């Protein structure tokens, strides 16, 4: 059975290309318009969870723990900084991409009008992922200052700009693609259970609260963490923002790219299946 991909070569004429680009731009603009219209929603889903974690694990726990000196607190804050940035980017992928899709496919069908746009259906899915990634980056910028001032001690910052500027978009893309994958694979009935089953280990075993190298004493958890895509996001930001120990970037980049590609591919496939019967 032919699918939308068959229409791709015909969109190469310049006029049609321009219209297609405008359509994709409009899909992005639609998501960002919605974001701008409800800034409190964005802030709530971006700020609250990391703020609480930073407060409890970065301020309360180190302050009440016996024998913690300021150096140890700074290490904790530094570790958390990268983890928090990874976490908010993941949240955006889920809340900006997965949840709206689950609602759309489950009952509102609002996305139907976008799917009827004269562009390949895959581009509608891709635009959703890009919009989610942009929101992830924006969220990271919002949370970054919190991660410096909420913990009991200031984290050690050491920007590696080339890494930051390449890794942040790749990490945001991967998390947003994960959102597409989950949003098209899950239905509205199983979503709460699946989020609990998938999201909790993803977040807490994704090296967000400790560095991967610190897992050495528990070897099996360390190995298991390598299968968690968030590990590479956390460790990547550790390399980009702090002087802390981190997984080799020669591993982080290809694995993130690989996860992104597979999740995008599968997510787009599911998306096409959900909108075409």
């Amino acid at each position, binding site marked *: 059975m032919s699918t939308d991909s068959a229409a791709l070569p015909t969109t190469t004429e310049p006029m049609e290309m321009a219209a297609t680009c405008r359509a994709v731009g409009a899909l992005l603009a639609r998501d960002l*318009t919605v974001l701008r219209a409800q800034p409190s929603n964005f802030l709530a889903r971006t700020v609250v969870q990391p703020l609480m974690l930073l407060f409890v694990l970065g301020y309360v726990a180190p302050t009440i723990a016996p024998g913690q000196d300021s150096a140890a607190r700074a290490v904790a804050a530094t570790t958390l900084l990268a983890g928090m940035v990874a976490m908010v980017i993941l949240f955006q992928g889920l809340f900006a991409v997965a949840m709206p899709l689950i609602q759309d496919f489950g009952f509102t069908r*609002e996305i139907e009008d976008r799917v009827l746009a004269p562009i390949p259906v895959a581009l509608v899915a891709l635009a959703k992922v890009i919009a989610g990634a942009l929101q992830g980056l924006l969220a990271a910028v919002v949370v970054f200052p919190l991660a410096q001032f909420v913990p009991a001690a200031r984290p050690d910052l050491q920007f590696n700009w080339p890494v930051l500027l390449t890794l942040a978009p790749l990490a945001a893309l991967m998390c947003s693609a994960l959102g597409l994958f989950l949003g098209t694979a899950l239905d509205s009935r199983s979503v709460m259970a699946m989020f609990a089953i998938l999201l909790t280990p993803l977040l807490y075993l994704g090296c967000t609260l400790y560095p991967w190298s610190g897992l050495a004493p528990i070897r099996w958890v360390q190995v298991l963490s390598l299968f968690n895509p968030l590990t590479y996001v956390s460790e990547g930001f550790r390399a980009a923002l702090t002087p802390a120990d981190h997984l080799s970037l020669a591993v982080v980049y290809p694995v993130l790219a690989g996860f992104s590609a597979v999740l995008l591919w599968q997510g787009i496939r599911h998306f096409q299946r959900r909108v075409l019967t």
Partner: protein
Amino acid sequence: MINSAPASPPAISSAWPAGFHPGGAPTEAAVRTVGLRKTYPDGTTAVHDLDLEIRQGEVFALLGPNGAGKSTTVGMLTTSVLPSAGQAQVAGVDVIRRPAIARRGIGVVPQRNTLDRSLSVRDNLIFHGRFFGLRTAEARIEADRRLEQVALTAAAGKAVDALSGGMAQRLMIARAVLHRPAVLFLDEPTTGLDPQSRLAVHEIVRDLQAAGQTIVLITHDMLEADQLADRVAIIDHGRLLALDTPAALKRSMDADTVVSVASDADPAALAALLTREIPGVGDHHLRSDSVLLTVRGSDHLFTSISSAATDAGLTLRDIRIEDPSLETVFIQLTGKDLRD
């Protein structure tokens, strides 16, 4: 109210009368299907080898009961359902091989409200225009024009959730024609609307029709099909049963009389009695409080029905010859009521 000029550049132009083409070339059909079939993964075949040709500028009604395959047919024509076999073209573009291109010539008002609840009324139209490649400024102009045409200018800044059912439906129609599609598909556009909103939708459809818009109207409302459609296709179980103008379909019923008989007795028992006693009774159809009979010839029908009932000890409440309507055509063709 709505002036739907042909798209520029139009895949086909609806500005010229059917059958006429300025270049002298034969006019393309607005919609053409050949052997179109849909079998779902569970094995049910919703549409069987459908051959249709819908002319430019006509209002074409697909009439059938729930589950007849109407929506599946429209889904295939509007690229959201993949056919299992056959071919389909809308505005000359193959919807199976080139769905993205075909969508440019297609406007859809789906059965359900699919308005974007995160956007205002006006933004729903502006973004729709932009999805179809309009520049933002053009999309704004078009949106405002369409809002005026469907009398929603005052609601432009409102949230979609604040609209009544009728207003939402008008907005959906405005959205579907904003990009000037060659063919507009209306899937049960008045189902669930109050009578006044229903009339408003009918008026919009007539205005579009007057402006030359080709419209495919899916409905299970016979009156709506009769009032609005140039031609009606009656489908059931995914098969085309009849296709003609409403008048011709009703004329085809001339040989038969449809009579409705109401009594205090059980309609099934009454139907059995009359089928047995009255000569020329063909089909019968049970309604909740009456029986609908198709009878060949109408001589002494009232007398024979009432005496048959009296002999059997039944009291009749009403005997009425029904004017030929699409409903009676439908009942004759399928043996069932569209409301079933």
